[in-house]
């Protein structure tokens, strides 16, 4: 298998790695770089558990070639917290009861983060569209949406 040398910039850290061309970004993040916060659910672009940000925009990392992400700023769920201090979205999703099994949570957080960066004061409909690529089979979504709304209010104050 041909390997390519690339440097991926993840959460503001450069990772020089050698990977084969066909590897997907989620696999490289988890297995090569060791950042296992990003989850692989369906591996079929359906569930959004693998959501990461590429230059601030959410993408499904299970279906994105890792080599293609070179030169972009990649943000994973590990990049949300500031040291031991959780990001407001993380704190609020916990407090709202928006986490049950937790498998969808990293992807939800990344979609929510991109939404709030772009739309600091979203309507409920905009929150629903922002999270529409993320499936959750536990919570029924209401408390996740509550957490995003609470965070928007908190960050705007």
């Amino acid at each position, binding site marked *: *298998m*041909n390997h*390519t040398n690339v440097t991926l910039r993840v959460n503001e850290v450069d990772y020089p790695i050698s990977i*084969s*061309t*066909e590897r*997907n970004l989620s696999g490289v993040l988890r297995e090569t770089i060791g950042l296992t916060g990003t989850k692989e659910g369906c*591996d*079929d*672009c*359906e569930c*959004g558990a693998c*959501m990461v940000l*590429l230059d601030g*925009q*959410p*993408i*499904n990392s*299970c*279906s*994105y*070639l890792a*080599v*293609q992400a070179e030169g972009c700023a990649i943000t994973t769920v590990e990049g949300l917290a500031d040291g031991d201090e959780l990001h407001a979205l993380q704190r609020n999703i916990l407090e709202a009861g928006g986490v049950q099994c937790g498998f969808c949570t990293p992807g939800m957080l990344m*979609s929510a983060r*991109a*939404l709030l960066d772009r739309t600091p004061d979203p309507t409920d*409909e905009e929150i*629903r*569209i*922002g999270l*529409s*690529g*993320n499936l959750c089979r536990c919570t029924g979504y209401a408390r996740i949406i509550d957490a995003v709304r609470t965070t928007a209010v908190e960050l705007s104050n």
Partner: protein
Amino acid sequence: MSFLRANTADEAVQLLAEGARPIAGGTDLVVGARQGKAPLPQNLVAIDRIAELGVIEATESHIRIGSGVTHAQLMVDPLIVDRLTGVADAAALVGSPATRNVGTVGGNIMNGSPAMDTGAPLMALGAVAELRSIEGTREVALTDLWCGPGRTTARPDELCTALLIPSPRDQIGSAYVRLEYRRAMEIAVVGAAACMALDAGVIVSIRLALTAVAPTIQEVTGLDVLIGERADDKSFAAIAELARDQAQPISDVRASDHYRRHTVGVMAQRAGHAAASRANGDLITVPVNRALGIGAAS
């Protein structure tokens, strides 16, 4: 396998001539490979950072949409929302925000799925694909581009560089409506796009194209009988009937053939109604699917 990145369309077509195949957002290519539908091409050339492919511009005669324009760009671009509204309707329905951020109109068109969303509105608006190779550039109408599911008449060394749409006249409206079971990451069960020009409520021109009821996006013929008629419920019912008559649906996991035949008529009727309303200057926000309440209740 090799992976190269092209910075210009010229570089890209040179690499295509040497046997490489293009990748933009990879939302069809990579998903398909991981599903085992088709392996990734041996040699890939990334075209997603070619600036010249990411431009939407209006010339005197045409609106030109670069093939690298993403669905996220299309759905909010003022020129597209205002003049080619049906294309914005379709782009806003593709996948999820993540898909729309990296998925491109060129990829949607050249992937050739009969269920693609942007194909029907672009066909109804008379779009032409600009195909470039090291030998030059040629234009192929979308009506001549697709020749089967996942198949086009483009050569492997040709790169779709743009979609060219004749500048719509003032009193024209377009709309794309699809049947969907989920509001995101969904593929059209069936869909219909209409483009209509009106003069004082009377139909001056009309085109209709259907999604996911034939081996390719399919244009409906015989609509000329509606020219000179009022854009009213009777005409919309006639549109539905023509769509049902000409659809060639199959049964699969998503829907039966007779359900598809029935519902494509409903979609055609609604697309016709929305296109006529827009031609009258009524504001229906993008995507029209949401205004109509199609899909799961919010």
